[in-house]
């Protein structure tokens, strides 16, 4: 694959990422458990998809599998297909992935305090990424670095380039991370809970920044979050995950205003609104541990609307309303 195909315009609305029936297992010793089970997800070029779920539901695992960064010795993809821009990535080698990483797919991680190398300056880390693409006679890396910092609204680029990570605030570091991820103009940005480790006020700025950059650079984005409240601000489509399964998947508007799956309904009911009074309803119980997912529908022990088949048969994904959902309440038509 050469550099030129990066310049070719992506077919607008074409599928950039296509995940079908993807199952990812973690292996510990002789036992294995599925952290992601039969996930279907498509991300079209230039669109933002939100992936929502509680901690441990498998959303980070799914995100890592899209950039080929699953821990190679402790995990494996056991079923399904995974393709990026028409290329089958399930069979991809490490080198295939390395060609895509950074250049076409980039990732911003949750914890900006751990994501920068503590012994290297920002200028070094940013410059090293820029130099991967720019020939020596091209735009000087320093100018490009300053430009990138400006893009993520960091002033005083001179000083920041000379700084070490520990001399910067969390918000600044996350901006640097975003600048590094965007340095090579990827087609897909995976943002794995990019605001979780930050103050609420900074969170809002980072979300706005990501949204603006996504539009300006016309890239696709997978925004992983446990905060349903952020979804409407940023994503056109939303996928809700529970215990390794994508239980509901549709346009953000329909998922938020007309949730189909009882889990999504419960999740949305527990959100505070301007008019809510008294105690918010809560979802009873705890999500299952990934190694001990109950049989049938994984949500059935907590589901207020469970009935006969729920503890025996894992529901398949079926259309309901304007979304796709996995629930026995919506039988095949």
């Amino acid at each position, binding site marked *: 694959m050469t550099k030129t195909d990066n310049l070719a315009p992506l077919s607008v609305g074409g599928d950039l990422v296509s995940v079908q029936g993807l199952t990812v297992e973690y292996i510990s010793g002789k036992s294995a458990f599925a952290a992601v089970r039969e996930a279907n997800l498509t991300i079209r070029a230039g669109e933002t998809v939100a992936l929502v779920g509680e901690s441990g539901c498998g959303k980070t695992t799914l995100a890592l599998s899209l950039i080929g*960064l699953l821990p190679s010795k402790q995990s494996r993809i056991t079923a399904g297909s995974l393709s990026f821009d028409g290329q089958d990535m399930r069979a991809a080698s490490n080198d295939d992935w390395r060609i895509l*990483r950074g250049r076409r797919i*980039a990732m911003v*991680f949750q914890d900006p305090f*751990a994501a*920068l190398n503590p012994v290297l300056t920002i200028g070094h880390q940013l410059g090293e*990424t820029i130099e*991967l693409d720019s020939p020596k006679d091209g735009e000087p890396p320093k100018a490009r670095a300053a430009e990138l910092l400006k893009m993520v609204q960091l002033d005083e680029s001179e000083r920041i380039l000379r700084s070490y990570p520990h001399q910067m605030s969390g918000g600044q570091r996350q901006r640097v991370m975003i600048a*590094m991820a965007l340095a*090579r103009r990827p087609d897909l940005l995976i943002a794995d809970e990019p605001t979780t480790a930050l103050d609420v006020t900074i969170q809002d700025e980072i979300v706005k920044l990501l949204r603006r950059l996504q539009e300006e650079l016309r890239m696709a984005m997978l925004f992983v979050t446990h905060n349903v409240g952020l979804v409407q601000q940023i994503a056109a489509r939303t996928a809700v995950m529970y215990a390794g399964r994508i239980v509901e998947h549709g346009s953000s508007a329909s998922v938020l205003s007309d949730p189909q799956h009882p889990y999504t309904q419960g999740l949305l009911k527990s959100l505070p609104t301007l008019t809510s009074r008294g105690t918010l309803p809560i979802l009873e119980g705890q999500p299952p541990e990934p190694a001990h997912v109950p049989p049938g529908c994984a949500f059935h022990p907590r589901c207020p609307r469970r009935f006969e088949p729920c503890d025996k048969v894992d529901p398949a994904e079926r259309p309901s309303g304007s979304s796709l959902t996995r629930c026995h309440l919506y039988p095949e038509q």
Partner: protein
Amino acid sequence: MLRLYWKRFLSNPLAVAGALVIVALAVSGLAAPSLAPMDPLAQDLFARLKGPSAAHWFGTDELGRDVFSRMIAGLRVSLLIGFMSAFISISIGTVLGLIAGYWRGWVDAILMRVVDIVLCFPTLFLILMILAVLDKPSIYMVMAVIGLTSWAGLARMVRGEVLSMRERDFILVARGLGLSTPRIMLVHLLPNVISPVIVAATLTVGAAILTESGLSFLGLGVQPPLPSWGNILTSGKDFIHVAWWLSLFPGLAILVTVLAFNLLGEGLRDVLDPRL
């Protein structure tokens, strides 16, 4: 960061003393030919086994050679062997540790078994065996043999550091940005595991000087007439009742030098690893 390290280092008088001694020794070693008052190989059979005096500060040996001049020449040899064999040992240990820790799996398994084997050999015995077979080894042989037998502990230590470091987010980020594996290992991992390597390097130089002295004492290290502290000591042992200076000065020199390296090494460890 560096300023903090410097301040911590200066607050440790023993480490500073060690560093000063090492600098002084290194300078004397470099300036050895012009510093020695006499030719270290020139014999004067009319002035054999003379005690320390104004003309011969550390006395003369059984062939009338000036012990002070011989020790300065020997200093050069000893330091050269110390630094070079430490360099060999540190390079091998660091590279193998990085590879084993980063790749894990069967690469790691094989390398660590090799480390086990090297570690369970009595090192001195191994060195003696190799040098005995070589017969009249050159000082380069001595360097190589000391260096090649002392890397195993460091390899295991670096591997441990790398194993814990490679799981950190910034390594995942570097991979996510598409950086190559050699670049991640050398630019991102190595600086993060370098502190124990620096400490080990300092201690290894001291240990290598000690090993060289021991080997030369046994006649398997630096071969006469080339002087080294160890072989000056050997010639001194036959005359210990009549010429104490022949044994005392090289013995003290070895003691002070190795002590200086150990003090510096421990000082650096305190500076670089505040957990201790």
